[in-house]
């Protein structure tokens, strides 16, 4: 017989003695193994009270970045969409009107920006392709939802809070990030 490992044992077909057939000794061995695990370090996390630390390269739900003045960085160049292997990203561009300089960083901006999270595979290619530091994969999961339509994220869902007009929300989002960092 060809064995794959040298640990395999032929089946012992000898008739058991009386002492063996009441299994006391074998039961004891089994219980000892169970008992040993009581004193080992626990591998489970008591989620939601306790969360697992994420890897620093964890790729979560996307965010659209703003610059320090609160202007949207995205110029709808389409590189994220063309890099996306799942074709999850779509956008429509518009020209910045005079007076909108405080909203958009450059003369062209994304009027519509959508990520279909049903398609997204969190590969991070969009972040890598972006020449404007506009899209990042954050450290949070994409939340679950009951409806498929809730997985179509538009620009408002993705944009980070504006540090100028929503300083509290911005600080909160930033604080969460720092708390998470400290936990690690």
């Amino acid at each position: 017989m060809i064995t794959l490992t040298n640990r395999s044992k032929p089946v012992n077909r000898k008739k058991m003695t009386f002492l063996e057939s009441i299994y006391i000794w074998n039961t004891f061995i089994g219980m000892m193994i169970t008992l040993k695990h009581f004193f080992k370090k626990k591998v489970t996390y008591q989620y939601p009270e306790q969360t697992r630390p994420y890897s620093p390269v964890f790729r979560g739900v996307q965010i659209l970045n703003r610059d320090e003045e609160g202007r949207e960085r995205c110029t709808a160049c389409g590189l994220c969409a063309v890099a996306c292997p799942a074709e999850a990203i779509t956008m429509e561009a518009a020209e910045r009107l005079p007076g909108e300089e405080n909203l958009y960083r450059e003369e062209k901006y994304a009027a519509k920006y959508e990520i279909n999270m049903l398609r997204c595979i969190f590969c991070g290619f969009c972040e890598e392709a972006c020449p404007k530091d506009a899209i990042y994969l954050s450290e949070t999961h994409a939340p679950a939802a009951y409806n498929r339509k809730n997985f179509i994220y538009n620009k408002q869902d993705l944009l980070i809070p504006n540090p100028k007009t929503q300083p509290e929300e911005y600080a909160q989002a930033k604080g969460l990030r720092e708390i998470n960092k400290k936990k690690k």
Partner: protein
Amino acid sequence: MADQPLVKVTIDNITIEVPAGTTILNAARKIGGDVAPPTMCYYSKLEDSGGKCRTCLVEVSKGSDKDPRPMPKLVASCRTAVMDGMEVKNITSQRVITARKGVVEFLLINHPLDCPICDQAGECDLQDLSYGHGEEGTRTEFRRRTFEKHTLGNQIQLHMTRCILCYRCVLVADQLTKTRQHGVLDRGDRAEIATYIEKSLDNDFIGNVIDVCPVGALTDRTFRFKNRVWFTKPVDAHRNCSKCCGEVRLWMRGDEVFRVTTRRDIWNEVATASDGKTGWICNECRFEKKKVSDWVIEGPTKVNRKSVISANKYVAATKPDEFLEEVMKGVKPRFMLDIHNESEVNEPELRLDLIDGPAHSNDFKIADEAHNKKLLNGSE
């Protein structure tokens, strides 16, 4: 050309016979492939073009059979005629490769590198050239030259900051339209393409300056910011036009015609039309015929596999049959998502192709209202 004697020229160890008087560049283009030097200013369809950008520099290692001395300096292949027995080195010469790197650096010295917002990105000769032959980083720390952007006429957008002064557009205006109203003003660093005293250009063929421009300096204002070229689908189409050949390339999204351009050949120049003339198209075809019903569509354009325009285009793919209903014996599947009900992109109420210039926030307000109405109706 038949009565002209043929001369033998060897380019990158490939020997070819061409009529005397042919330039090295055209001889190399006859061989084709990587042997042909890249060009930024030379345009075979325009007389007297070339000799300005220096990207087509080649090394002549043997002048001719009669005078076998090598030429001391690299020569511009678009302006140098071949001699019998000439030996030319293009990609086999390290000198040429280094020199071309330098030329790219010079061309980019004042280029703003705003490819993310430039409509030419994806089909830009300078982009291809700098990716293929240039260095990765920049060494200059000086401020780049800047100009105010303005529109030539109503439909041509001029970004002078992106211009590399190849003079192709000036030659188009000179040779195609009898009345030239724009040219290069000022000199050196301050030289710029401009219309004389802001005269609007109303010639029928002036739109062709957009197609000859190797960079994004002259772009179509009716296509401005509408979409990236690689998301639009190119199809070849034609119509009966009294002014031009009417053979064009449409750049479409669904049934919307976003842009109309001339057809291009393998050198990214305007292709020859079926009547044997160069396929320049008139402004009416280019700017005003933005409906599918205006055109007879011949079929999708064959796009080079290496081009970004070929991305996400599934030419041979067939749509699979919807089998769910059949399997479920006529019961329509529930909980399916029609992306068009939810997505705000490509709203039927907002026809980007029918807007003259670039879309603005007020255009998108209409689409937003329509979308909100649809959501309300959906939830009832």
